[in-house]
């Protein structure tokens, strides 16, 4: 008997499928990160984790910029758990990127892809900070994590990113989640998303 692709359990979207290797990579990364920081998983992985059938090389994760000591502990823990950082092997040199609000990337040892594109944010990045502050819970098998509100993610792809791939991702999300998307939320979020263009 056919089962639906997702269902809603309270405040959580439950995607009705098994975990794949891409999910497990993110799960391991977030398993370390959660000890040190809050986060939000954004962009392509939101579409792919909900059924968009395309490959990807990276998973974008927002985090509020952290202090050097916390970052050092987090970095050491990641390395101890089998990750390496593209930008450097010492947390001091990598922290310079974070301090300057530049993205950094982590992959598993002896692998290039997939990687986590780790994106520091603060309140000056208004749209990103908004989605970070309004997370939607999603669960696949036993793996629960946070994504932006679906309407926000769709608008961000349509208005800000707007490449062919992003438009296709947005169409996927609009179709797959058509039963739960809310027009009033699209209206509410559009002006916030458009601030990212300025």
């Amino acid at each position, binding site marked *: 008997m*056919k*089962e*639906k*692709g*997702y269902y809603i359990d309270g405040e959580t979207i439950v995607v*009705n*499928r*098994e975990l*794949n*290797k*891409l999910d497990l990579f993110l799960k391991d990364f977030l398993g370390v990160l959660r000890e040190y920081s809050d986060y939000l998983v954004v962009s392509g992985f939101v579409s*792919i984790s909900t*059924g*968009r*059938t*395309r*490959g*990807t*090389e990276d998973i974008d994760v927002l985090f509020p910029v952290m202090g050097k000591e916390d970052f050092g502990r987090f970095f050491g823990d990641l390395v101890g758990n089998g990750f*390496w950082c*593209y*930008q450097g*092997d010492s947390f001091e040199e990598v922290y310079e990127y974070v301090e300057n609000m530049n993205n950094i*990337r982590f992959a598993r*040892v*002896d*692998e*290039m*892809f*997939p990687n986590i594109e780790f994106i520091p944010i603060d309140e000056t990045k208004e749209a990103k900070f908004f989605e970070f502050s309004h997370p939607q819970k999603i669960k696949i098998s036993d793996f629960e994590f946070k994504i932006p509100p679906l309407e926000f993610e769709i608008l961000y792809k349509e208005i800000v990113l707007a490449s062919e791939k992003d*438009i*296709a991702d947005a*169409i*996927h999300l609009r*179709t*797959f989640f058509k039963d739960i998307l809310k027009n009033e939320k699209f209206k509410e979020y559009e002006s916030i998303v458009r601030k990212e263009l300025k």
Partner: protein
Amino acid sequence: MKIVTKPVRDLDYVVLYANEIYKDNSLFDQQKELVESQLNSSSLLFRRKFGKGVGFKKKARDFLSKIGLI
């Protein structure tokens, strides 16, 4: 009688697939194969290109620098 519109553009297939996977979660099995196949191919490619261990990171960083990613 159900009228089925034939997909024409690439994006029509995105809509078709999203509708079908919503109705039938067994299609996630196909998606899993595609996602993992890409990861396995990529892993094999870069292992052959850069080897393992300390050498891997050095060669990988040289490559990333050349393509402007770091």
